[in-house]
């Protein structure tokens, strides 16, 4: 999943970005609300982390602007302001959660998962696809009850394909979910990860749609229970 981080403090911004990348997310970091609006127009984010004390446009206004522009993903407010009226205004203004600084990185990751899970309409941090079970929190996969060891990037690709099962995703779309801006991406990186996934999980799972991309078909109805 790709996350947009809006934070004006350089040290905190950089550390949060790398911390979330360590947890397996692609993170784009901007320092003002204006840049956040531009980024949202250009890319597809699963979650936005929004600081309230931003220079220029205030975080609360940014929240309203984002929701008015039709952004439907999760928005988490991360702020030093912890007054109850501000929390209420934030949550009522369209935020999914309210996190007060200083925060714990693991808790932040859990809240991101929780908010994006609700945004996606799921109840638990487990995705089931046929005999495949993905534990999103632990980033682990079992196939027919047998654990399968995947790298963080491989898990990311599998998760994206399962979440969008039935849809064909292009190589660029998959790359976009895995890599932050400025990260070096080998041109055949996605192909390599897909190759490894097929070796570990069987060739039939991921279908190549020629000249378009990749797809995991929806599971057969009787296997979906």
């Amino acid at each position, binding site marked *: 999943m790709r996350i947009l981080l809006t934070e004006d403090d*350089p040290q905190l911004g950089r*550390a949060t970005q790398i911390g979330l990348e360590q947890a397996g997310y692609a993170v784009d970091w901007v320092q003002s609300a204006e840049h956040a609006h531009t980024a949202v127009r250009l890319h597809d984010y699963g979650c936005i982390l929004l600081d309230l004390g931003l220079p220029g446009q205030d975080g609360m206004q940014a929240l309203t602007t984002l929701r008015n522009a039709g952004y439907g993903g999760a928005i988490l407010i991360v702020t030093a302001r912890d007054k109850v009226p501000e929390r209420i205004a934030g949550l009522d203004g369209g935020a999914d959660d309210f996190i007060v600084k200083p925060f714990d990185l693991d808790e932040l990751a859990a809240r991101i998962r929780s908010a994006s899970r609700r945004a996606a309409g799921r109840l638990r941090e487990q995705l089931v696809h046929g005999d495949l079970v993905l534990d999103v929190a632990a980033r682990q996969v079992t196939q027919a009850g047998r654990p399968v060891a995947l790298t963080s990037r491989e898990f990311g690709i599998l998760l994206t394909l399962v979440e969008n099962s039935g849809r064909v995703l292009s190589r660029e779309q998959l790359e976009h979910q895995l890599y932050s801006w400025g990260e070096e991406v080998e041109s055949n990186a996605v192909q390599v990860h897909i190759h490894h996934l097929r070796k570990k999980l069987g060739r039939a799972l991921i279908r190549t749609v020629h000249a378009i991309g990749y797809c995991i078909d929806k599971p057969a109805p009787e296997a979906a229970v």
Partner: protein
Amino acid sequence: MSTAAVPRWSLRRLLLGVLLTLTLALWGGSAFIVYREAQRESQELFDQSLAETAQLLLSLAENEAREHGTSLAIDLKIPERPDHHRYLLFQIRDARQRLLYKNGGAPSTAFAVDAPEGYSWARVDGHRSRLYTSWNAGRTVQIQVAEPSSHRDEISTRFFYKASGLGVVLAMLAGLAIWLCIDRVFRVLQVSADEVGARTPNDLADVPLEGAPSEVFPLLLAINRLFGRVRQTMEYEQRFTGDAAHELRTPLAAIKTNLQVMQRARSVAERDEFIAGLNVSVDRASRLVDQLLTLAHLDPQDSHGMALEQADLATLLTEEQAHWQSLAAGHQLQVEVAHAPCRIERESLRMLLRNLVDNAARYTPVPGRIVVSCGQADGHSYLRVADSGPGIPPAMRERVFERFFRLPGAKAPGSGLGLSIVSRIAVMHGATLSLDTGMDGVGLAVTVSFPASA
């Protein structure tokens, strides 16, 4: 508080005491005068009627004496009353003092030897009595009338008791009226006192002034003014601690996140990057704490106690410039001094200078120019720090003195407290601050203009 244990003098008791004593004394005095006057008047009336009775009896006796001569006792044929002696006794004598007639109860001996003609006092039968002695025109018959004073005393005593009884009732009514009035007046005071007393440190709303009497009004007004000042101070404190906590959270969050990321670093380079980030964040937090403490020490309420001394800004600048070299590293720092006498507090003015130079160095891209100067203009001594940095747009110049205010998009690290500190120190010196365009049409110039020395 132990104020309840200390006996306090009471305005109400004092007023009640003074008014009651005064009323009673006035009433008592006037009652005494009226009593004496009444006694004198009644004495006169009694005397007059005594004389009239004596003249009547004398003319009767004279008639008898003319008809029967004075060789024998005469009979006036007056009906005798058994208690006559309680009211009137009389004796009629001839020129040789022989007793011609006396009424029942009167002694045979003279009432008083050598009693003068007219009124006099004497003891008759052991009773103090009023005497009236008179001769007829031919000085052949004399009459002496005696009236016991007990009769008169009885009447005046009765009058005295009646008057005092009425007086006591009136005094009690007056006392009650005074007490009720004072109570009513003091209840108004009590209402105001309760109103103030019911306040808690969290409830500093103004005491209502409607209906307060003009005597209490200035007191309530003064209390409201005090409340206003306390309210301001408390709001300031609350805002200050709120702002401070808020501003400290960001560097603390950066420290915590840097630490966590460092622990999970995927490479040595990544770990080193976050050790550096940790350093910067800790520096930022400690600088913020330093500045917060400075600002807290510069409480506006304390400025009255600040000892200002006569000094020359030129000397101060010359002494201080060595300390700025490290602050302004990488910049071209110029110090231009001219004679500028004024009254200052050295330590806080050093802090003001350090903050201004630090600000200039922070926001001016390296290599820039910073000019610190002092001198006199229009009779005022001034201090100026100018730089060749990005400056502050005129629209923002008012706001930069607010605590924690930072210019949008400001990249240089800063707490947003420097100019607040500068502004506070300027206020403590009674100096004015102005922001202008700095050198060569760019940058910022901060001028501190001191009041003319007396």
